[in-house]
C-alpha cells in the first residue's frame, strides 16, 4: 500500500498540514503536495475508472503526461472536470471526486464491460450498433453516453466565478521548460543580452535533475539550480515564469503560454488563469523527455507506475507507492528507482530486465546492494484486482510461461524515454528516428520555419535526445547558441559540467513478453485513458489500417485528453510490427497544440458578461434604457424597438408610437445611421460611380436619395446624399452599412481609382441625429427657436441647412422615411442628449412620442419605402423594386451597370415589388411564399413570389405587406394565395391566405403630407 515515508520530500513542508476531501472522504496532506502525492500518501491508490471498460486505475505518472488520475475538482460554480491530480497543487479545502464511476469508485457496474471486450473491439463505433437502425438513437447511444465520457460537465446554470485574462508580450526568445537545460539556455541568452521569457509548467525550477542524483560542477544539481535562478532573477532582460506552460507554437513566432496564476491559491484577488500571447524571434523547447510504459499483461492495474514517477514521489513528496516494488525495465535508468527505494529502506524483490545482459554501473550498484537482477525477464501477468499483490515473471523472449511468482504491492516500469518534441512539431518541424536509442528526436535539417524561411525553434537538452545529464547541459548550451546566433546575439561562457552514472544501451521492447499470445496481448494496455490495447492496434492492422493517422482514429489511440503522451510511440511501434514495417516509415501522428488542455476561461480571457462583446451606444442610449426601451440589436448597436409603457404589449406600444407620429409628433434616435464625408475634386465623379443615379449634379444645400449596387448589380445599400459644398458630400448609409460602405469606398479608391482625388471619413459617431417627425414637427422646432428659416419655402423637402436650433450647433435635413413632415437634426454627439431633452420638453404640449425601429419600419412600409435587408437579400436589383427612376440612363457607367444588362437581370419574368392586401385584413406571415400551380422536379410546390415585409398598419387598421411577385406590377388587382405554417386538420388542404396585388404605397400616395 502506498504511504508517506518517514523522511524525504524536497517539495513538501511537513510542518504544514493541508486538509482536503476525495469523494467526500476527509484527508490531509502537506503544503507542497500535489493532489496525487497527497492521495498516495493517504493510501488512496485507485483514483479513477477507465473510459471504456471502467477498470480501476491508479496514478501512473507524476506530471503533465498522467493518463489515469483525472478528477472532478471543486463543486457547483467552481466544478471542473478532467483535472490531472498530478499537476493539481494541494490547497486547503480542495474537494475532488473521481470520474467515470457508477455507483462507486471501488465497485463499478461498468466494470462488467471488461468481461465483454468482444463487444467493444477496436472500431466498435463503426461496426457494432449499426442494426437495427432506430436502435442507435433510442437504445445504444443513450447507454453509451451514460457509461462513457470522463468528467461530469458543469451544471447548466453554473457560472464560473473566477476571472481570466490574456497578456501580450514581445520578446527575442521564449524558452519552454525550466529544467537544467532550460535554465542553462536562459543563462546563455541572458548573458548574451537577448530578451528572454523562460516558462516552467510546474511550480518548481530544475526539472528532474535533483531527483535523478545529477551533479553539476561537482555539487548537487539543486545547488546549481538555485544559483542559476538567482542569477537569472537579477537579469533585467530575463523574465521567469513558473506555473506557465508553453502550450503552442505557431507561424510568425507566435507562442501561446498558459499560466495557472491562482489555481493553487483560490480566494486571492488574482485572476485564475492568464493566457500569454507572445511574439518571439526564436523558441527553445527545453521540454525534457517522457518515460514510456512497457506493454505487459496487466500493466494498467493500480500500483503499476512509471519508474521515474516512483522516484519523483519518493524524492519530491516523500511518498512510496508500495512497500515491495518490482522494477521492470529495458534500460539502465530504472535501476535508479530500485537503488533509491533500497536507500529509503523499502524492499525491491527483483529487477526484471528484458535485456539479455545488464552490466552497466547502475546494474553493478544494484547487485552490490543485494538487489536481485534478472535478465531476459519480463512480466507475464499482474496479480490483484484493485491493486497489485504480485507479478508473474517470464522470459522476455518467450511466450509468457511463468517462471516465478513474486509477491509485491507495486511495479515500477520503464520502457525507455521519448523526447518531448511537441513544440518542435507544432509548426512543422520534422522528426528522425534514432534506432539505437529507440526514440524520435528533432531532425535539425528540417526545422519549423518562420516568415523568412529560417528555422525558429530548437530543442535543447533531453528534448533534443540528450538524455544523460552531461550531454543535456552541453546540448542546452549548443542549441541556445544556435538560437541566439539566429537572433544576432553571441554567447560564449564556459559550460558547467554535469554528470550522472553512465548507462548501457536499452533494448527496444514493444511487447512483453515478445511472443505473447492473443489472450495476453488483449491485456496489454497502450492508451490507458481510452482503453486501447496491443490487440486493438493489431486488429486495426489486420483490418487494413496502414496509416498511423487512420489507426489512431479507428482505435482512438492517443485521442484522449492526454493526447497519447504515453501511448503514442508504443502504439505506432506495435502497428509497425504488425505491418512488418520500420517504425520511421509508419511515423507519428501529428502533434497539435495545446501541449496539455488549457481552460476555456483562459481562451475567453476577460470577454464575458458585460464585455463579452462591445456594445455600441448612441449618445441617447442612457435615456432609452432609463425609459424602458425594448432593445433590438442592429450590428453591435442596440436600438430601441419600441418603448412599452407599464402594462402595454410591444405591439400596442408600436401602434401608439405610430399614431402619435402620424397625428402629432414623434422623435427617433437616428444616430446609428451611417455618415461618411466624401471630399475632393473627384468626389462627384466618385459618387456617380458608386450610386446608380447622378450625384454630381446635386446642388449644395440639397439632398438626394440614392442606391448603391455591388459590381454584380445587386442592391447593397441606400440612403440620402447631402451636398455640403462644391467639393464635399455627406453620404448617409444604413446603420449596418456604415463600416461596410466606408470600406467599399476605400477599396475602390485605393485599389482601382487610386489617382482620383477623393478623401473619405466615417463621421457616423461625430453626430447625434434625431428625426423630428409629424405634423407638429415644425411647431416644436419653432418653439425651440432657430436662426434657420425652417419654412417650406426656405427649406423645402430634400433641402438642408446649417445653423442654431434652440442654441445647438445643428444641421437640419428635410428628409423623411415616414411619409410625414420631418426634420432630421444632427448635432455634435456631445450635445445629442441635451437636444433630445430639449425636444421632449418643448414637445410635451404636442405629446412628443419617442418611437423605435418597429414604428419606423411600419411607417416606411405604409409608404412603400424599401428596407435594405427586407426587400433586398443579395439577389435583388433596383429594377426589381420599381426603382428604375433612381437609375441614371445618362451615365456612361456606375458599379453594377454592366451586370444589370445581363439577360437574367432583364428577364421580364423576374419577381418584382408590389403591395399586398389580404382579403380578410389579416397580416400575412413573414417570409410566406405566393403559390403557383404544379410542383417542381424536387416535388415541391411551385412559387411565384414571396413576402418581404409584412405588418399591421395602425394607420389603416389592417395588415399590409410588400412582396416580390412574378411580373407583379402588371398584375394589379389580381388575387394570389400565400402559404402559412399552420398545421391543416386531417384530410384538409394546407391553409393559405389570399391577398390582392396592389400598389406598395398604402398611405398618402400623392406625397402631400411631408411637403408642407
Amino acid at each position, binding site marked *: 500500500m502506498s504511504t508517506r515515508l518517514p523522511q524525504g520530500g524536497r517539495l513538501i513542508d511537513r510542518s504544514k498540514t493541508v486538509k482536503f476531501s476525495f469523494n467526500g472522504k476527509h484527508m490531509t496532506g502537506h503544503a507542497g503536495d500535489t493532489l496525487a502525492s497527497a492521495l498516495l500518501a493517504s493510501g488512496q491508490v485507485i483514483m479513477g475508472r477507465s473510459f471504456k471498460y471502467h477498470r480501476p486505475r491508479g496514478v501512473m505518472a507524476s506530471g503533465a503526461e498522467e493518463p489515469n488520475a483525472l478528477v472532478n475538482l471543486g463543486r457547483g460554480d467552481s466544478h471542473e472536470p478532467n483535472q490531472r491530480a498530478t499537476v493539481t497543487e494541494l490547497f486547503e479545502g480542495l474537494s475532488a471526486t473521481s470520474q467515470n464511476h457508477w455507483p462507486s469508485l471501488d465497485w463499478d457496474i461498468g466494470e462488467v464491460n471488461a468481461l465483454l471486450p468482444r463487444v467493444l473491439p477496436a472500431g466498435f463505433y463503426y461496426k457494432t450498433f449499426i442494426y437495427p437502425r432506430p436502435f442507435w438513437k433510442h437504445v445504444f447511444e443513450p447507454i453509451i453516453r451514460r457509461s462513457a465520457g470522463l468528467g461530469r460537465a458543469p451544471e447548466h446554470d453554473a457560472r464560473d466565478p473566477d476571472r481570466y*485574462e490574456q497578456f501580450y508580450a514581445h520578446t527575442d526568445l521564449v524558452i519552454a521548460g525550466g529544467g537544467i537545460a532550460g535554465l542553462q539556455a536562459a543563462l546563455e541568452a541572458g548573458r548574451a543580452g537577448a530578451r528572454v521569457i523562460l516558462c516552467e509548467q510546474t511550480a518548481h525550477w530544475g526539472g528532474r535533475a535533483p531527483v535523478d542524483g545529477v551533479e553539476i560542477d561537482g555539487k548537487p544539481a539543486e545547488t546549481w539550480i538555485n544559483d542559476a535562478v538567482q542569477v537569472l532573477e537579477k537579469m533585467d532582460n530575463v523574465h521567469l515564469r513558473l506555473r506557465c506552460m508553453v502550450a503552442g507554437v505557431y507561424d510568425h513566432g507566435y507562442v501561446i503560454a498558459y499560466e495557472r496564476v491562482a489555481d493553487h491559491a483560490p480566494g486571492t484577488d488574482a485572476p485564475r488563469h492568464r493566457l500569454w500571447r507572445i511574439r518571439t524571434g526564436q523558441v527553445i523547447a527545453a521540454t525534457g523527455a517522457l518515460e514510456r510504459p512497457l506493454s505487459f499483461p496487466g500493466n494498467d492495474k493500480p500500483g503499476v507506475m512509471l519508474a521515474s514517477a516512483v522516484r519523483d514521489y519518493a524524492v519530491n513528496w516523500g511518498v512510496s507507492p508500495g512497500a515491495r516494488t518490482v522494477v521492470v525495465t529495458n534500460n539502465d535508468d530504472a535501476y535508479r528507482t530500485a537503488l533509491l527505494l533500497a536507500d529509503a529502506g523499502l524492499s525491491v524483490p527483483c529487477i526484471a530486465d528484458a535485456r539479455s545482459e545488464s552490466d552497466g554501473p547502475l546494474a553493478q550498484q544494484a547487485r552490490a546492494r543485494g538487489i536481485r537482477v534478472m535478465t531476459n525477464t519480463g512480466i507475464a501477468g499482474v496479480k490483484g484486482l484493485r491493486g497489485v499483490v504480485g507479478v508473474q515473471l517470464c522470459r522476455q523472449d518467450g511466450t509468457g510461461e511463468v517462471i516465478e511468482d513474486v509477491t509485491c504491492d507495486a511495479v515500477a516500469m520503464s520502457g525507455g524515454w521519448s523526447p518531448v518534441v511537441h513544440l518542435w512539431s507544432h509548426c512543422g518541424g520534422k522528426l528522425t528516428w534514432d534506432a539505437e536509442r529507440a526514440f524520435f528526436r528533432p531532425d535539425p535539417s528540417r526545422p519549423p520555419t518562420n516568415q523568412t524561411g529560417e528555422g525558429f525553434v530548437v530543442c535543447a537538452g533531453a528534448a533534443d535526445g540528450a538524455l544523460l545529464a552531461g550531454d543535456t547541459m552541453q546540448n542546452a548550451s549548443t542549441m541556445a547558441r544556435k538560437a541566439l546566433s539566429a537572433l544576432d546575439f553571441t554567447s560564449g561562457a564556459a559550460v558547467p559540467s554535469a554528470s550522472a552514472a553512465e548507462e548501457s544501451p536499452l533494448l527496444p521492447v514493444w511487447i512483453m513478453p515478445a511472443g505473447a499470445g492473443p489472450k495476453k496481448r488483449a491485456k496489454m494496455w497502450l492508451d490507458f485513458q481510452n482503453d486501447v490495447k496491443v490487440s486493438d492496434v493489431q486488429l486495426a492492422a489486420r483490418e487494413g489500417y496502414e496509416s498511423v493517422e487512420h489507426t489512431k482514429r479507428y482505435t482512438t489511440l492517443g485521442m484522449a485528453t492526454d493526447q497519447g503522451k504515453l501511448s503514442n510511440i508504443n502504439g505506432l511501434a506495435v502497428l509497425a510490427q504488425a505491418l512488418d514495417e520500420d517504425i520511421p516509415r509508419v511515423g507519428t501522428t501529428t502533434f497539435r497544440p495545446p501541449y496539455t488542455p488549457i481552460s476555456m476561461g483562459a481562451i475567453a480571457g476577460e470577454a464575458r458578461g458585460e464585455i463579452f462583446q*462591445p456594445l455600441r451606444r448612441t449618445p441617447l442610449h442612457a435615456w432609452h434604457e432609463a425609459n424602458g426601451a425594448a432593445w433590438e440589436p442592429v450590428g453591435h448597436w442596440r436600438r430601441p424597438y419600441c418603448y412599452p409603457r407599464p402594462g402595454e404589449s410591444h405591439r400596442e406600444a408600436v401602434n401608439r408610437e405610430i399614431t402619435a407620429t402620424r397625428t402629432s409628433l414623434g422623435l427617433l434616435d437616428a444616430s446609428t445611421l451611417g455618415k461618411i464625408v466624401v471630399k475632393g475634386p473627384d468626389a462627384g465623379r466618385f459618387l456617380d460611380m458608386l450610386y446608380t443615379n447622378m450625384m454630381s449634379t446635386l446642388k449644395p444645400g440639397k439632398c438626394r436619395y440614392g442606391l448603391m449596387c455591388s459590381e454584380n448589380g445587386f442592391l447593397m445599400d441606400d440612403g440620402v446624399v447631402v451636398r455640403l459644398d462644391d467639393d464635399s458630400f455627406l453620404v448617409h448609409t444604413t446603420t449596418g452599412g456604415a463600416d461596410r460602405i466606408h470600406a467599399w469606398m476605400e477599396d475602390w479608391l485605393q485599389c482601382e481609382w487610386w489617382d482620383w482625388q477623393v478623401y473619405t*471619413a466615417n*463621421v*457616423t*459617431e*461625430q453626430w447625434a441625429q434625431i428625426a423630428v417627425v409629424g405634423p407638429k414637427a415644425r411647431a416644436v422646432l419653432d418653439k425651440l427657436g432657430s436662426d434657420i428659416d425652417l419654412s417650406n419655402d426656405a427649406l423645402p423637402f430634400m433641402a438642408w441647412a446649417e445653423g442654431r436650433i434652440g442654441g445647438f450647433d445643428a444641421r437640419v435635413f428635410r428628409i423623411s422615411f415616414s411619409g410625414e413632415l420631418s426634420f432630421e437634426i444632427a448635432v455634435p454627439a456631445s450635445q445629442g442628449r441635451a437636444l433630445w431633452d430639449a425636444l421632449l420638453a418643448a414637445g410635451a404640449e404636442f405629446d412628443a412620442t419617442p418611437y423605435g425601429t418597429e414604428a419606423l419600419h411600419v411607417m416606411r412600409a405604409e409608404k412603400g419605402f424599401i428596407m435594405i435587408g427586407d426587400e433586398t437579400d443579395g439577389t435583388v436589383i433596383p429594377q426589381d423594386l420599381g426603382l428604375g427612376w433612381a437609375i441614371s440612363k445618362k451615365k456612361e457607367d456606375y458599379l453594377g451597370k454592366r451586370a444589370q444588362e445581363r439577360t437574367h437581370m432583364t428577364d421580364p419574368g423576374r419577381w418584382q415589388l408590389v403591395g399586398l392586401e389580404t382579403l380578410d385584413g389579416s397580416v400575412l406571415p413573414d417570409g410566406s411564399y405566393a403559390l403557383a400551380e404544379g410542383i417542381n422536379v424536387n416535388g415541391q410546390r411551385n412559387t411565384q413570389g414571396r413576402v418581404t415585409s409584412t405588418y399591421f398598419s395602425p394607420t389603416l387598421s389592417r395588415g399590409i405587406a410588400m412582396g416580390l411577385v412574378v411580373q407583379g406590377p402588371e398584375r394589379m388587382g389580381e388575387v394570389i394565395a400565400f402559404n402559412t405554417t399552420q398545421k391543416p386538420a386531417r384530410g384538409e388542404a394546407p391553409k393559405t391566405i389570399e391577398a390582392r396585388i396592389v400598389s406598395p404605397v398604402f398611405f398618402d400616395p400623392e406625397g402631400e403630407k411631408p411637403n408642407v
Partner: protein
Amino acid sequence: MSEQAVSALPGAEATGVVTVREMGLQGMVSLRGDLAALGTVVMRLTGAEMPAVRAMTKGRGIQVAWMSPDELLILCDHGAADTLVADLTQAFEGQHHLALNLSDARAMFGLSGNASTLRDVLAKVTPADISALHPGEMRRTRIQQVAGAIWFETETEARVICFRSVAQYMFDLFTVSAKDGGAVGFNR
C-alpha cells in the same frame, strides 16, 4: 451650446492596480492631405512640427500625431476644434485635403500608475508592443475587440482613445484589467 456638451462617460473613474479615468471632452481634428505639403500651415496654426512616422509633436496647447502616410490627428481644446477646422480649410483652399472636427466621435481615457504596472495593464488588451512605446509616439492598434490608439504623456500616464459608442466597453475592459491582484510584473 458647448455648456450642454458632455463626453461619453463624464467622471467615470476606477482604481485598481492603476487608475482609469474618462478624460472628458477632448478636441480632435482629423487632417488628410499630402503631408509633405501641409507642414508650414500646420506649424503656423498649431506651433507643432510635422511628426515623423508614428510620432507626436507638441505645439501651443496642441499635439499633432501621425496617423497614416496622408493623415494627421490634431489634439486641441474641445472648444477650439471648429475654429481650427475652419482655419485649416481656409489655409488649404484650392489644395486637395480634408479637415474635420471629429472630437465627438471619440472618447478618451487616462490611465495612471506605476510605470511598469501601467504597461502591464495595457499589454492585457492590445497586441501592440507596449514595452516599445514611449512618450512622443502614438500607436494605433486594436484594444481587444475595438479599434483604438494609445500614447504615453509620461511614463506613468497613458492616454487611450476609442470611438465614443464603445466608451463603456473600453472603461469596463480597463476596469477589469486593472483590478487588484492583476499585476503581471512583466514590463519593467
